[in-house]
């Protein structure tokens, strides 16, 4: 799954944005092995280079082996059967390849013999054997379905990608990024700056949010993510990933220290509408995001010789800019908010997101249930407890009553057996308490299948994330100069107000109501008149 893909084979549109109806060669797919076990895979054609399997590239999992050839050209979401892949003799085979393909040819018939008794698979195998001849000449063996094991193949969606992320450091998870993108107004066509690309989870989600087509010659400005990463290894990893995902035209990734060098691209403004800062010290980067050269407060940080260069704002000068910073510590928040206030950001708000996943289960409680996992063998309700206690009590009484019929044994026991008798009592009680009455439980369990039985409940996960990071949101209004104001004032002169909108005082409201009523009445009269006339016409 690693290694950069040949750029020429890249699908035209990223599979994240338009996966198409079927899986494709050289495209990313995500294998769902089990509920939360997801594995990204780049599907390769069997003719491509591989590790020496007879079937071409193969994914080996604990649920079986899956040659890529079985996963290409199928609808997304498909259930894929495991295939019989010879994983063991691979090394040996390679050595033997010097003497021809004898090794594999010898191996496969053996395998087939073993499975001949395998009901519904026999057909597939026969087919496979038929094609074995021509396929072998290609050097690629047709995959043979295994008797058990399956996985599902899912399209790359930012949420699934985030869940399957191979490197688990600094991940902005779905609950956070979904809220952030919503609040940042990241919509198709917007330009969003991201500093600290990290593992790319936010990057993918942001790219999806702002995507409104790939930039073309006629329309170069399209929705874009302008991403910055200072960590060199991560930068390289990310750029490879982006090109593999077909996102390099949507995401513009730069390797840079944004504290020092700011956010301009070759001295030009990306005209950002929104900014997401996942940095250790966002306050050191904020001054680069001003509309005007910031005052001396941060002049020290903006380094030397900045005075001659005219200030180019990173932000879209036409719109309000939305920002979000993502910091785990409250001290970082205090400093960030303070810096934001000094730089003129408004509507500053800090929130933290508490997210919970819930699992549903069927809680089965009852005395008469078969012992199974997740079953609680205690009384279901008071009535059941009462019934059980009465039953025990009855048995106890019956047992301790001097028995006329069994007098012989009682006499034989005599005084000595008092202890034994006690034991018997206990045994009787134990027998009553133990859920041995199979005949009692069987009707209950047979009438209600396990998936319908018990009370349906929802429980939280075993471990919850109680804190991810603090999110600080703010807005920077667009610049508004005296000239702008004069132009607007000329365009919309005041003094000719006719109506009052919003909450009014009583007198004004009454007046308006009176006018409205008068107008309505007029209408009604006019309508009635028109109708009468019409009816008159009809009568004629």
């Amino acid at each position, binding site marked *: 799954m690693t290694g950069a893909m040949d750029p020429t084979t890249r699908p035209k549109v990223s599979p994240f944005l338009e996966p198409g109806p079927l899986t494709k060669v050289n495209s990313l797919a995500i294998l769902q092995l089990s509920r939360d076990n997801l594995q990204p895979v780049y599907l390769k054609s069997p003719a491509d280079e591989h590790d020496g399997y007879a079937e071409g590239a193969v994914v080996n999992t604990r649920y079986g082996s899956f040659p890529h050839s079985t996963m290409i050209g199928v609808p997304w979401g498909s259930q894929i*059967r495991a295939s019989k892949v010879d994983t063991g003799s691979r090394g040996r085979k390679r050595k033997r390849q010097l003497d021809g393909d004898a090794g594999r040819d010898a191996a496969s018939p053996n395998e087939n013999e*073993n499975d001949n008794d*395998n009901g519904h698979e026999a057909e597939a195998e026969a087919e496979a054997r038929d094609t074995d001849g021509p396929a072998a000449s290609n050097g690629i063996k047709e995959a043979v379905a295994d008797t058990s094991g399956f996985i599902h193949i*899912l399209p790359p969606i930012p949420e699934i990608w985030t869940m399957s992320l191979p490197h688990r450091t600094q991940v902005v998870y779905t609950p956070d990024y979904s809220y952030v993108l919503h609040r940042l107004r990241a919509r198709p066509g917007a330009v969003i700056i991201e500093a600290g690309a990290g593992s790319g989870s936010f990057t993918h989600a942001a790219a999806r949010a702002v995507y409104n087509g790939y930039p073309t010659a006629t329309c170069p400005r399209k929705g874009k993510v302008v991403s910055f990463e200072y960590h060199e290894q991560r930068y390289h990893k990310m750029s490879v990933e982006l090109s593999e995902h077909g996102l390099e035209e949507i995401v513009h990734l730069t390797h840079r220290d944004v504290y020092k060098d700011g956010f301009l691209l070759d001295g030009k403004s990306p005209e950002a509408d929104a900014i997401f800062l996942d940095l250790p010290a966002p306050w050191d980067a904020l001054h680069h995001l001003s509309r005007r050269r910031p005052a001396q407060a941060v002049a020290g940080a903006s380094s030397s010789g900045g005075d001659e260069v005219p200030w180019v704002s990173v932000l879209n000068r036409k719109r309000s800019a939305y920002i979000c910073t993502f910091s785990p510590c409250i001290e970082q928040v205090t400093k960030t908010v303070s810096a934001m206030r000094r730089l003129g*950001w408004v509507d500053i708000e800090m929130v933290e*997101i508490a997210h919970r996943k819930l699992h549903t289960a069927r809680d089965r409680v009852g005395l008469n249930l078969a012992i199974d996992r997740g079953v609680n063998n205690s009384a279901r309700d008071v009535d059941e407890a009462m019934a059980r206690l009465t039953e025990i009590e009855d048995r106890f009484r019956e047992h301790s009553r001097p028995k006329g019929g069994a007098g012989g044994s009682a006499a034989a026991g005599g005084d000595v057996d008092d202890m034994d008798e006690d034991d018997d009592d206990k045994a009787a009680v134990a027998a009553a308490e133990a859920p041995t009455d199979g005949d009692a439980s069987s009707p209950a369990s047979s009438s209600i299948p396990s998936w319908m039985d018990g009370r*349906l409940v929802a429980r939280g996960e075993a471990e919850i994330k109680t804190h991810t990071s603090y999110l600080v949101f703010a807005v920077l209004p667009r610049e508004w100069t005296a000239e702008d104001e004069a132009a*607007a004032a000329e365009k919309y002169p005041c003094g000719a107000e006719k109506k009052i*909108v*919003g909450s009014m005082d009583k007198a004004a409201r009454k007046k308006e109501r009176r006018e409205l009523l008068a107008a309505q009445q007029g209408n009604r009269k006019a309508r009635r008149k028109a109708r009468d006339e019409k009816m008159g016409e009809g009568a004629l």
Partner: protein
Amino acid sequence: MHSVVRPNAWVAVKLPSGITRVLQVAPNTTISLGKYGAFPANLILGRPYHLTFELEDRRPGETFSRLRVVPPSELYAEVFADEEAPSCSTPAPGTTEAVITAADGDEFSLVDADSGKVVVRPNNETIDDTARQTLTQEEIEELKRDGNNAGKDVIARLLLSHTALDQKTSFSLAKYKLLKTKKYIRRFQVLPIDVPNFSTWQLEERDASKILDLRAEMMGLVGCWGNVHYGGEDVYLDDPKATSEQGHEACPTVQEELLKGRWLVVDDTCGLLVAALAERMGVLSPEETDSDDEAEVKSEDKATDGAETAKDSAPTDENIKKEVVDDDEEPKETTRQGSDTEMADAQDEDQKPKADAKPKHQSPRASDFAIPFSQTNTITVVHGASQPNLSFLNYWGFDVTSPNHPPHPLLNHLLTLTWLQLLKPELDTSYSTPPLTASSETLSSWKPSRRGNFHRKRRRYARIHHIVDTARAGNFSGLVCASTMDPISIMKHALPLLAGGAPVSIYSPTIEPLTTLADCFSVNRRTAWTSGAVPEIADKSNEELEHWVGTEQFPLNPTLLLGTSIQTSRARRWQVLPGRTHPLMTERGGSDGFIFTGWRAKPAEGKVAAKGKFKRRKLEDDSAPQSEAAETPA
């Protein structure tokens, strides 16, 4: 969202008291903010959003208050003062300094061990505020009436004439000042009506039950898990050029290969969910252009119909612009004659990079059976009533009930149909009644109104057929719901319509409907289903199982959905002030809101056994004559 306030745009006005007023800014009106005063709407038209304005005192000879933009340095003056105080980590010692002596020896005071200064004053001296305020209500009223300086005078006087001000702790002082500021300062902020702002207002100040308590967190999650995004460039079907004699056979057929980026939506939030999804797909508001303001004004003018009086009086001094506006009037006029397909043409105009001032050639009128809808990037809303309730879309200039609508992107991207039309179209009159036909001679002999009706009906027929046929063709890219209906019943009919791998994202204000839904896909059910414990499915093909009608034990086919999960999320808001940072004391309660997610699966044909359950398989094998025992050890 636009960069400045447009005439007749809906805006949210945020008042110092925290109350938001949502209103339409019509030119040449006065906007009244109640006790905070009134100002002419023209003073905020053409001005940017998010600025804080202050109502100035009336100038001599003027009948209205002018506005002043409050610079941020003034907005945050107090915070800056706090920060500048020597040690802002302890609560503003500067202000308490004077009263330390009074508290000396007070055993409840918190005393800093090193300096011996009182850090926090006890609150046992708290005094009822009104008792210590020497200004009477009449005096305050008088101050308010002729008070100057946007209410700041009143606040200063109130603070000055408070006798116990020096006995307040710094916290209570700050609180007192904030309280008075909220009450008297004559400031406001203009916010755009976009989905986040609108939903916050609807949730916190209007009727939260109308939007099913859909909070911003949940809206973000629903959209992301539904993978809702821009679904590709618009593609339109060719006009079949059907003549008036041609009936159903001339209707364009569904071309499934063109259908892309379509989401199936069930919305009981009066259209908020649709608005949120439309915003994610870029079809909520007319395309944002980076061209100069004139173009934006133009598109805005087009979007707001029915405000002609206001628009007429709007100053349009430049000749060029006037021409543009006049030009626009034309399509409106034709629409009035009863042609709603005109919208498609108008939309095409919109998509041109910039509709410049030179007169446009009106394209020949589309035939009755031309489909105005894009084949990609669409929202299909299924509704339970005969008309969809999407009333909140009015705030974005879209009225779903209006037959002759001015151009709006939603016109070409929002498809609505009833459950009846989706499931049993033959029972729906408007779908099953064949279209009227008439020869051109009879047509020309009719009165214009009858002719208009004839065309309208034929157009409606073509539209409904297209919507129903494309919806029934399925292959949707995702399902998004926020509905009061039982999610199981929705899923029963919606699941077969989803493409493989398509995400499902269902919101519910309460968890119970979602747990029952999730239980339909429980491991036990799935195992029972795949292991052959369900006799009803024994001889059914996958195709038949996809349309599983449901039994009491298996309401849904449990193998059709993967990775099902239920989640909830909540944002906790904090106050961040120097030395006084803490979570807000109260927030909205009510329904928490949950979402159910999963991905549509395509089960493999035939029986598929899971790996690693050899024991169970052996048991099954015992009953089956064909034993796999020989294979098991391997």
